[in-house]
Each structure stands twice: as C-alpha cells, then as structure tokens.
C-alpha cells in the first residue's frame, strides 16, 4: 500500500526539529532511517501528519566512547556502528548488530530508531537493556537521560513524551573479565526473532537478556551453578516470562527456545570467559 499524505520537515538543527515536535506533538513523528516507520506508514498502521527527517543532521551523526559508554547519535545507522573501529570495546554489539534486519535495511536503519520503535523481539533494545545502557531524550523543555529499563515501557511503547526525541543512546563498554554471546531463532535470518537471547558473563555469574517473549526485553541474573542448576533456572525463567502463542510460534515453542538458546549462550559466554 501507499502511505497517507504527510508534511515532511527537514530541519537543519536539533533545535529546529524540536520546534516542529513542540508545535505538532502527537501528530508528528521523527523519521530517521525509516526502516520500521516507513513500512508502518505504507501499511497505514501509522498516519502522522508531519514527519521530521533527522537523517541528515550532522550533530546526530557521531559515535564516540566517553566515560565508559559508547554514545551513538540518533542519525547513526546500524551499519555505521557495525563498521565503527571502536566496536570491540563492546563485543555484544558486534555480536548483535549482524542480526538486526538485513544488509540492505541496516544501511539506512538507525540504532536509535530501533530503540524508539521498541519491538519486543528486536536486538538493539535487548542489548541496551542487558548492558544497562541509557537513552538521551531532548525536547524544548531540556534534556534528560533515561535508563533502558525505564525507557521501554511496553510492546512498541516508550517513556518518550510527544514533544521529545532521542538524540543518542549510550551502551556501556564491556567490563574487564567479561564475555558475551548472542543467539536467536526466527523464520528467516533478518526477520523478527521469535526468541533472541544474549548473555554477559563474568566471575560472579551470567546475566541474560531475553527478547521476543515478554512485551519488553527481560533481564535476569544467575549465579554460576552446575549444568543441572542452570537448566532448572532457565526453565523457571521460561515459565516466568509468560510466553504467549501467536501466528509465529506457540507458547510452548517459545519456552523451549528460552531453555535451549539460554543454555547455548551461557555455554558460549562461559567458554569465551575461560579462554579470557
């Protein structure tokens, strides 16, 4: 289908973008890469009156590491982050990014756009939640920093107000002596995952981030246990997340994936840890 009509604002600065958002509120939407939003518009699942195109804003186009965080501007594409020379500072991002959409969509789709879209099965919200990252929001009223846990409030729902936009996301760099792993199962590589799980392990235990089951990415910390103990813990998590059935998968299949993918990423992260 074709999108309904909309005005397209092409601000030259963030300040101008915020003016448009303030004026139009809920009738306006930020357009960055458009790899989720333009599809929703084509299907008329969204019919904003104004799109604010921030894809060309230089002040949102940088990636930088500072104070233990990798800060990614709102116009940075997933592909740009994947090719960023500093990425080894957070191996989980290097593991997750090749699974975000496809080669073709990553070249336009933005990191912050994925976070703003808030799909429960998408990889970047999962990574942000697991790593304990944060999102920087701006409006005419000022800027505020929101933790990943506070930012994503539900399925495709965030804590952003109607006059706010994401200007950057911050992913913590990997801690010393930490290792990570990621795995997902979907109908086709690049499609929405049915279940996606990431693990970050260190001497104290392993933290899992689980996407595709609950409305928002779930984060669970486990102490190191023997294999049987970990299997029991994964089984408890699988039930606790209250998986539902839909056209893609049954609740039972999702629980099976949580157990099996969970065991796989824990094993991989532990192996990486022991290889140091």
């Amino acid at each position: 289908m074709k999108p309904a009509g909309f005005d397209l604002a092409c601000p030259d600065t963030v300040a101008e973008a915020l003016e448009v958002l303030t004026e139009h509120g809920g009738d306006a939407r930020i357009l960055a890469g458009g790899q989720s939003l333009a599809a929703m518009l084509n299907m008329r699942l969204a019919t904003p009156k104004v799109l604010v195109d921030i894809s060309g804003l230089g002040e949102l186009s940088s990636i930088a590491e500072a104070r233990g965080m990798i800060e990614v501007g709102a116009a940075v594409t997933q592909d740009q982050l994947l090719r960023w020379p500093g990425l080894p500072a957070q191996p989980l991002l290097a593991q997750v990014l090749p699974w975000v959409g496809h080669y073709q969509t990553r070249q336009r789709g933005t990191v912050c756009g994925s976070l703003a879209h808030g799909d429960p099965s998408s990889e970047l919200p999962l990574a942000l939640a697991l790593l304990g990252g944060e999102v920087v929001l701006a409006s005419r009223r000022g800027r505020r920093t929101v933790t990943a846990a506070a930012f994503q409030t539900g399925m495709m729902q965030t804590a952003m107000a109607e006059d706010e936009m994401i200007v950057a996301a911050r992913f913590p760099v990997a801690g010393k002596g930490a290792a990570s792993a990621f795995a997902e199962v979907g109908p086709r590589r690049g499609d929405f995952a049915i279940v996606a799980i990431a693990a970050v392990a260190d001497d104290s235990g392993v933290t899992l981030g689980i996407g595709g089951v609950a409305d928002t990415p779930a984060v669970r910390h486990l102490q190191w246990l023997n294999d049987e103990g970990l299997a029991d813990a994964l089984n408890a998590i699988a039930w606790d997340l209250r998986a539902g059935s839909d056209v893609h998968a049954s609740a039972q299949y999702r629980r099976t994936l949580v157990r099996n993918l969970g065991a796989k990423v824990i094993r991989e992260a532990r192996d990486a840890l022991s290889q140091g």
Partner: protein
Amino acid sequence: MRYLKADAGHPVSFTLNGRPVSGMAEPRTLLADFLRREIGQTGTHVGCEHGVCGACTVRIDGRATRSCLIYAVQAEGRSVETVEALAAGGELNDLQAAFRRHHALQCGFCTPGILMSLSQLIEEEPDAGEARVREVLTGHLCRCTGYHGIVAAALDVLAARKGNKDV
C-alpha cells in the same frame, strides 16, 4: 528549514545512473514509484511495499536501499543507481551474465533488487564467501530459484574479479 507540504508536488532532482533526472513528487511518494511512474524507469520492481521482499532495492550513494522505504524527495541531490545501470551499452555486465549462465533467475521479478545488493557486496567485499553471500541474500525473496543459482553466480563473479578464474 525545508518544509514540504502534503498533497502538493515538490521538485526533485538527483543523479540516476549517471544522468541528471528531475520530476515532481509529494512527500509521501515512494522513491520506487517515482522511478517507475515519474521517470519511466521500470527496471526497479515493487513487491511487498514494506521492506521485506527486496525487489525494489536500488543503490543510493552506493548503498543498497529499499526504494519502498524512502521517499523520492529524500533522494534530492543524491546518486541513485538502478538495474538499468548495469548493462552499459546494452551488454550484460559480468554479474548479469553469470546470472544467465547459472540460471539464477526464472520469472525475474526479484532479480533487479538482488543484482543491486550483490553489486555493492562484490565491489566492497572482494573476499566475501558463500556464507556472506547467503547472508546478504536473506534480504531478498526469490520464489523460483531456491537461491542456489544466485549464490553460484555471485561466487563466480567474486572469483573472476579476483583474477582466479575466466568467466
């Protein structure tokens, strides 16, 4: 700030396959529709219109992009390349010739998009192997070939361009 009103035509100019083109587009006009209807270049195919099938993939400033997920007015001033660029002078290029040799197409609907993605891959990643080719192809749906011939054609061209093999 450039502000384009809905339901009005706005002038759009960009470079298409090395030549300047221009036309009028509403903000909501998809680049794919602009290419086909306003410019009359129908090599780019429109399949699902929500970024899943990959048939409409073109290259914008060299990057493989869904032309159904970008508006024509966003192409202003850029360099757009479509399947029409490949057979310069009416001769199939090496990738197209390899597609024919390996039976990498049957109905041909998906082919223009796949050619544009693989063109970028082959240019930028001369060392790409089968796994990488298959990963790039996950962004395309082909319901005829089973992908086997497409993968073989891409690997053939990668090898040939490295000088390892005659095509």
